[in-house]
């Protein structure tokens, strides 16, 4: 399981990255944490001719708290989120999700942006972004644009990122006072992709983002816990190797009951 041959570039800036992506188009892929991309290369299910390593672009990293937002640079490693007092204070939902994401060695390299750009339907961070109504900041040839989380995740490994674009950050609105969040997932083993998971946030409304239940995370929004629970039936999960569709729906209901209790 050796990776196929590729040409390697290590740009020093976002501008250089965009230029490389523009020159090589479909032949190029961005290498961030590599924790999902490199296995694909090793299995030879992906064979980009050019790998653009963005790991040394300092501008893409970092957690910044402003008056209105917490801005997480796309290259921020999971472990940085895990250890960040700002995240613990302002984004407790993200903090709660962190221990469920794979394992320490993976979290030391994997990035927030990589997880969101890959959009695995069973991943935790896309669900958190949805629940917390984050906005993704995307850089392209024509400049920066912003896409709300609910418009970002399109389908199985599909996002609003267009060819040649680079995810540079996500902006999470600072939670309103009195808001609360709750997180839970069911996985066969610690760190596995979730069979079913919920990232929920109660502010003016209650937003429960379900993951592992379809080809992308799904939000159920209501005023009350009962309101969310009554709509869980509308999820249309797809079977995977470890659970039938009926099983996933059942687990979604059970997990919702347990997790959302905390937000009553």
């Amino acid at each position, binding site marked *: *399981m*050796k*990776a*196929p*041959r590729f040409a390697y570039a290590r740009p020093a800036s976002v501008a250089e990255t965009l230029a490389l992506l523009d020159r090589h188009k479909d032949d190029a892929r961005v290498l961030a944490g590599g924790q999902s991309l490199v296995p694909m290369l090793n*299995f*030879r299910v992906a064979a980009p001719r050019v790998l653009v390593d963005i790991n040394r672009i300092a501008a893409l990293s970092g957690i910044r708290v402003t008056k209105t937002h917490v801005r997480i640079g796309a290259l921020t490693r999971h472990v940085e989120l895990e250890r960040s007092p700002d995240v613990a204070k302002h984004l407790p939902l993200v903090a709660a999700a962190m221990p469920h994401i794979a394992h320490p060695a993976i979290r030391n390299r994997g990035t927030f942006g990589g997880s969101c750009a890959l959009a695995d339907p069973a991943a935790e961070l896309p669900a958190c972004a949805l629940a917390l109504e984050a906005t993704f900041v995307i850089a392209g040839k024509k400049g920066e644009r912003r896409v709300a989380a609910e418009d970002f995740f399109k389908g199985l490994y599909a996002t609003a990122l267009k060819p040649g674009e680079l995810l540079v950050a996500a902006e999470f609105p600072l939670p309103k006072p009195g808001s609360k969040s709750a997180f839970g997932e*069911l996985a*066969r*083993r*610690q*760190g*596995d*992709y979730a*069979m079913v998971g919920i990232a929920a946030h109660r502010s003016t409304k209650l937003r429960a983002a379900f993951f592992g239940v379809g080809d992308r995370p799904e939000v159920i929004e209501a005023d009350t816990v009962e309101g969310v629970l009554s709509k869980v039936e509308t999820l249309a999960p797809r079977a995977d*190797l*470890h*659970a*039938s569709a*009926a*099983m996933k729906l*059942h*687990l979604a209901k*059970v*997990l919702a009951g347990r997790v959302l209790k905390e937000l009553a």
Partner: protein
Amino acid sequence: MSGFDETTKTLNFDAPNSYVGRSVTRPNARRLAQGRGQFVDDIVLPRMVHVAYLRSPHAHARIVAVKSKKAAAMPGVVRIVTGAEIAMVVKPYVGVLTHLQGMRSPPQYPLAVDVARWQGEPVVAVVAESRAQAEDAAEAVEVDYEELPAALDAERALDPSEPKIHKEFDSNLCFTRTVDTGNVDAVMRAAHLVVEDTIHFGRHTGVTMEPRAILADYNRADESMTVYHCGQSPHMVQGIVASRLSLDEHRVRIVARDVGGSFGIKIHTYGDEIAACALSLMLNRPVKFTADRYESFLSDIHARDHRVRAKLAVDREGNMLALEIDDLTGVGPYSMFPRSSGVECNQILNLTGGPYKHKEYRAKGTVVFQNKNMMCQYRAVGHPIAIAVAEHMVEQAAAKLGIDAAEMRKKNLIPDDAYPCKSPSGMRFEALSHHACIDKLLGLMDYDQLRREQAELRNKGVYRGIGLSSFIEVTNPSPMFYGVGGARIAAQDGCTIKLDANGSIIAATGVTEQGQGTETIMAQIAATALGVEMSCVKVLTGDTDKVPYGGGTWASRAAGIGGEAVLQASLALKRNILEVGAVILKTSAAELDIADGKVVKKGTEQGLTLAELARICYYRGNELPVDFQPELVVTRHYRVKDYAFVFSNGAQGCHLEVDTETGFVRLLKMWCVDDCGRVINPKLVDEQARGGIVQGIGGALYEHCLYDDRGQLLNATMADYLVPMAAEMPDIVCAHVQTPTKTSVLGAKGAGEAGTGGAPGAIMNAVNDALRPLGAKVTQQPITPEVVLRALGKVK
């Protein structure tokens, strides 16, 4: 250290300086902990090349054409070889044991020739300067296949309408056998209660940490081949490489250094490994093959794919009267060479119900070919299924009669004083300790307290389960296992031991080490028998050039058989040393002993060190009488004569909690009481039990090779095939009962497989115990959350 009693033929293992029975640490663990092991993939030889295999993407397909010109021109490529070309230098092999009557399997070649018969069968070999380049070229090889209908359902395998895998046979039947005491139907008709169930066991595999690896080095100049191999049976492999490649056996050397886990996976003959040897022969240079994890899943042997229908008849008091099983198993398209894919089924027929008193038994076994990966022996061969089936039926019957599960065992286990005796299937037991083990187990578990807690928690809607399993385990096999069936697999073993020139002891043994501690316990035995410190004993294993012809390690034979050969050789060497000592000290050998590395007059400290004695023998022979020649190198062999197998026995317990809303099973604690005869190193035995139990947990709850209806393995990655990881595993309490076997002086039985054999039965019983008040039952493994919820009717 007092000596061997010639009259009683016993050794006092409890003497103060005895290492036997002590939990000494493993001398070879230190270098492994520093990353200084030498695994096959670590070895580099001059001009070494690498092979990657293009494997069949289809379960069953004709190979129409292979186009490799483009690939052959790619960077680093040395040679591209098809199955037909390999078949010209490798004699085919047939994985049949003649004592499994009627078993059949067609000749098999290392790579597919004309037809590929399982997804993952190697089809084309690509040799290149690096593995990466070989893989690049393999991608560029084009193979035209014509897909053929595949036989994928064992239940239908013998239907005339099913695709027949081998034209030369009249059906997909590989082997069938029936055991019948003759009176089962009558007893069942008259019985107070007959319980029936059908249990499915999911196909799973070994997932050794170190994937299979081989480095074959043929030297045309002297027509010799050296093979660095990760296998358990170097001499067996020597014979196979020599005979299949038409080489002189004494010019073939097999070296097994550090092996990263095997558990039986690396004891079989794999086409990709034999092909690597053939390629070295063809290219006259070293060829290395290291399976990657993906091809490991596709081609390492699978195991334990069985459907068992079982019936148990009991009387009003719960006494077991008759047991019947019908076992169906779907293996690969061939029976694996040389140990055959019939042994797992045969063991199930032989062993189910073995611990119990019932007299009537009927067992039918059917082994069918399938277009799925090959299947063969994997740790505890057949036992996990045999034990789980019997233990399930026992607890089902107990529950129906309102008898406590532990009471049911005590009622029905063969009494500890009933030996020697025979099982209804013909297994001869020398001396077992089922009752002593279960009594000890129940004490360790604080069984009554667990039951009380369970009842209290049930009232609060918390469902805990307690499950037991009593088991027998095959160890120390005689030639009845393989040799009698025509396989060139040694059941005897040998040890050559010497007192070296500087006074150290070198013991070469035919059994091998894969991390269980073989080298350590051999050193313990030799040091004990000779009266020296363990630190001056060096043990050599795993090199056919250096050790006596032996069987290697499998079927838990290393301690009992290898250990006895070491013991006998050590005692013989001691006699020779004392003869020398007698001559030097001018006394009789009977007056002498060896203590702390010194030959001394009994009861005194007078004498000379082994180093001094050796110096005289090796360098100053002039000081010895002219008519006396010291022999400081001794070889002894041992084989089990009195029994087909020396059975061990034990009992396991499992305590778990079932989340009845999610179906998740949480293991709280497990226990194992094992009687493996004389325990040489208690810590190592415990750790074999723990590791084995966790492997059993894997099969019971997590591991399953999932095939789709086209014969594609769906979960050939570590992310999708679930092996037990640390966070979900319980602590496991281990204890021993010791009933030394009288078939040897050492008295040791094997201990490596009992953990894996007994665990799935205890776990399934515990889950069913938890679910019983809810009227639900599981009868398949792995017991996934969905299996539990379907049993509860919560998911349809």
